[in-house]
């Protein structure tokens, strides 16, 4: 195609459709205009809201310091788009190049970007999930509803699942003086993302801040009163927790159902793409007109042997959006790969947690700076003799240094003499990740093998 003018024609008068009007969709739309796309641009979103930012929803909003309705993302430039908000995409016709919408409309495209993200995994028992006082937290409306309920001063909040979101919710509740019970089926909070050594620190933080933390236990049933309000939860250890607010934080499900039967390589693990965000079809052939970005995409990553990697990270959505936009408008020799080192942050119990690389691939951890006891440290994760990830508790400024070690596949344990090595950091420890076949609540990174058409599930709640 390049050379025959079709790319110039696409830029001048093509039709680009973006399904998913959140962070990745918006940033991609802005990047397309930035790169000179002058054709028609349509953004489709199932929520009636303009693109908003999610990180504040489990932090500032629950603390009462911001309103969920006031979290719209800043616009970096005008996108001059047709917005179809409040209407979900329900199907894709690859042969005709059309997206079907819930209201019956069809939107034709020359290039399509899929950025439909993930949704909160609901409480698996439907009738219990519908009890008044049972919440999930993913979107703006979820956060607004939960914040209103917290304002009303519940007797006790029960958080099911101590991944990052669950832990942040518990932190906000404690800061507001609310009684909180957290139930986590793993051995410690954050254990799926950061392992047991760091998870033990997260557990200490929770308990020091007055959280009633129950690890190694599951909620087996939620009970309601006669008026349909939740009043108690039954746990697998036989205990009962009386509560009037339950927040289900069991991780997320990728929004790919609307692509079922389309022929695209999409399944519960996400949409398989090449390193340039172009989606594969189920035959393992890469498409040239369909791209994916953000939480819904799974892309091969050079740092991890080109296995497909799905990332539920803010920075990943921004970067992939830019890569997809660039590649849509570029000839094949000018396309760019998505190579960014994964990174995320969380704030909980007064501690700033940041990570680079993929800690959950690590088998060993070395505390290179600070100390676990002080809840202020850097931990470096090793995998097959190289540095694969790092986590910092209140030591954010060091992370760029560790990112360089990951990018340069530095040996593990790292050879440098640390400036601040304490007894914790004398030798590597087993990082103590749970058996990967045992699901945890909040893995935000998933490595999902080499098959572009892989449709197997990785997570099966045992509830």
């Amino acid at each position, binding site marked *: 195609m390049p050379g025959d003018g079709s790319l110039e024609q696409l830029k001048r008068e093509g039709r680009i459709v973006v399904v998913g009007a959140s962070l990745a969709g918006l940033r991609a739309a802005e990047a397309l205009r930035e790169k000179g796309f002058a054709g028609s641009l349509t953004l489709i979103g199932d*929520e*009636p*809201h*303009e693109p908003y*930012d999610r*990180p*504040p929803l489990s*932090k*500032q909003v629950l*603390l009462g*310091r*911001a*309103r969920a*309705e*006031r*979290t*719209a*993302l*800043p*616009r*970096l*430039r*005008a*996108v*001059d*788009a047709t*917005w179809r*908000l*409040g209407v979900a995409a329900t199907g894709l016709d690859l042969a005709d190049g059309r997206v079907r919408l819930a209201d019956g409309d069809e939107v034709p495209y020359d290039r399509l970007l899929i950025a439909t993200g993930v949704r909160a995994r609901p409480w698996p028992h439907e009738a219990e999930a519908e009890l008044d006082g049972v919440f999930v937290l993913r979107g703006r409306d979820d956060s607004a509803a939960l914040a209103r309920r917290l304002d009303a001063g519940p007797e006790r909040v029960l958080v099911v699942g101590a991944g990052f979101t669950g832990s942040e919710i518990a932190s906000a509740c404690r800061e507001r003086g609310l009684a909180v019970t957290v139930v986590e089926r793993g051995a410690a909070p954050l254990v799926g993302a950061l392992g047991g050594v760091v998870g033990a620190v997260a557990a200490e933080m929770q308990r020091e801040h007055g959280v009633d933390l129950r690890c190694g236990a599951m909620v087996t049933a939620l009970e309601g009163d006669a008026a349909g309000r939740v009043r108690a939860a039954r746990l697998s250890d036989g205990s009962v927790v009386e509560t009037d607010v339950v927040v289900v934080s069991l991780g997320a499900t990728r929004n790919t159902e609307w692509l079922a039967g389309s022929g695209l390589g999409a399944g519960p693990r996400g949409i398989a793409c090449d390193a340039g965000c172009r989606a594969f079809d189920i035959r393992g052939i890469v498409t040239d007109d369909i791209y994916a970005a953000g939480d819904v995409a799974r892309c091969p990553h050079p740092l991890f042997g080109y296995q497909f990697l799905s990332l539920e990270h*803010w*920075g990943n959505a*921004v970067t992939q959006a830019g890569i997809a936009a660039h590649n849509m408008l570029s000839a094949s020799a000018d396309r760019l790969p998505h190579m960014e080192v994964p*990174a*995320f*942050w969380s*704030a909980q119990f*007064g*501690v*700033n947690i*940041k990570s680079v690389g993929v800690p959950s691939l690590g088998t060993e951890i070395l505390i290179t700076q600070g100390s676990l006891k002080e809840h*202020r440290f850097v931990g470096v994760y090793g995998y097959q003799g190289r540095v694969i990830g790092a986590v910092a508790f*209140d030591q*954010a*400024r060091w992370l760029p240094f560790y990112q360089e070690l990951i990018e340069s596949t530095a040996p593990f344990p790292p050879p440098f003499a640390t400036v601040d090595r304490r007894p914790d950091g004398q030798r590597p420890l087993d990082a103590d990740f749970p058996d990967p076949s045992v699901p945890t609540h909040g893995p935000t990174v998933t490595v999902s093998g080499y098959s572009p058409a892989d449709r197997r599930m990785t997570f099966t709640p045992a509830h």
Partner: protein
Amino acid sequence: MVRIAVDLNRCQGYAQCAFLAPEVFAMHGEEGLLYDPDVDEAQREKLARAAAACPVQAILVDAVDAVDVADAGDTPAEAVSGAR
């Protein structure tokens, strides 16, 4: 109103923003940052100073005055004005 977001992957807790625009940014713990994502127009100047002073340029501020989308979830008045 001015919409903002902070790229907290970049943020390293230098706290310059919390000094320059304390109505918008506040440190939370030793290096965590809380901010108001929807800033009052009266703070625009302070906000611009804070964004410019950030050593890692992590503060994203609205660059577009008139927004081209009506938020279908909000009131028609807001939808008509198309801007916040």
